[in-house]
């Protein structure tokens, strides 16, 4: 396999996806889960821009990445607000404590 700049980019994206997926599976802190989600979205954005570079359509990929940035920020905001409320009601950020919710 020859290591062209595009291949190096894809390998970097795969590395970021792997780290983020491990974080989503293994981490127990709610805020850290949102951080893992952020890493995953950054890998997806990088893949979009790399795809744009490979197909010579960087501007189109930029407009898609801008949408992803907005959606990602809203997800982070809602996720953090939920984490703060869970901390207020349960006194912990551990996701194991969420299984004790009633109702």
């Amino acid at each position, binding site marked *: 396999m020859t290591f062209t700049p595009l291949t*190096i980019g894809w*390998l*970097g994206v795969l590395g970021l996806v*792997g780290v983020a997926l*491990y974080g989503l599976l293994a981490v127990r802190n709610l805020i850290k889960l949102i*951080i893992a989600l952020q890493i995953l979205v950054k890998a997806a954005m990088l893949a979009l821009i790399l795809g744009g570079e490979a197909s*010579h359509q960087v501007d189109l990929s930029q407009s898609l990445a801008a949408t992803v940035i*907005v959606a990602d920020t809203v997800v982070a905001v809602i996720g953090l*607000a939920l984490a703060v409320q869970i901390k207020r009601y349960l006194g912990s950020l551990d996701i194991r404590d969420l299984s004790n919710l009633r109702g």
Partner: protein
Amino acid sequence: MVRALLLALAIVFAIQALRTNRLLPSTLWLAGLSAMVSILFYQLGARQVAVIELSVGAGLVTVLFVFAISVAGDEALSARPLIPTLVAIGLPVAAIVLLGVLALSLSPAASPAAEPGFTVALWGQRGLDLIVQIVLIFAGVLGLVGLLSEGKAPLDRSMAEEVIAQRDRDLRAIQQRVENSQKERTLS
């Protein structure tokens, strides 16, 4: 070479963001990752998105995380994962192998397509995306306000009666203070 270095740094920052026990350093590693990704965007020719990523990803989102950590507290949990370590490592490895087979088999387009330009691509071709973005921002703001609003106990009486009762309580407290000061004066 520069791209490989930036990607290696980005992966190291991502690992550190998840490996650190405390939340605040973790957030700062995430901001570093955002900065690396935005430099990569700039290097790939996506200059507008690079600026947006640097200001939103490394700036706004970091501030939001720091705010949430200051409210929720920086509690350090043990690093022991919920699921077996073998599964936690095996599943991501399987996912990136499958993704790698798909992604690495792609070859770059031979002939450059005619590019309309970022402004035309965003405002002309992706108009629906912009409407979705506006709706998302409104939904985000409304969700944030709803989630962070303090819950108050329902009033027993009507609002006017509550205000009158509060005013009476304040008046009684003032009268009590005046009587106390008069007593002290007569004693002295």
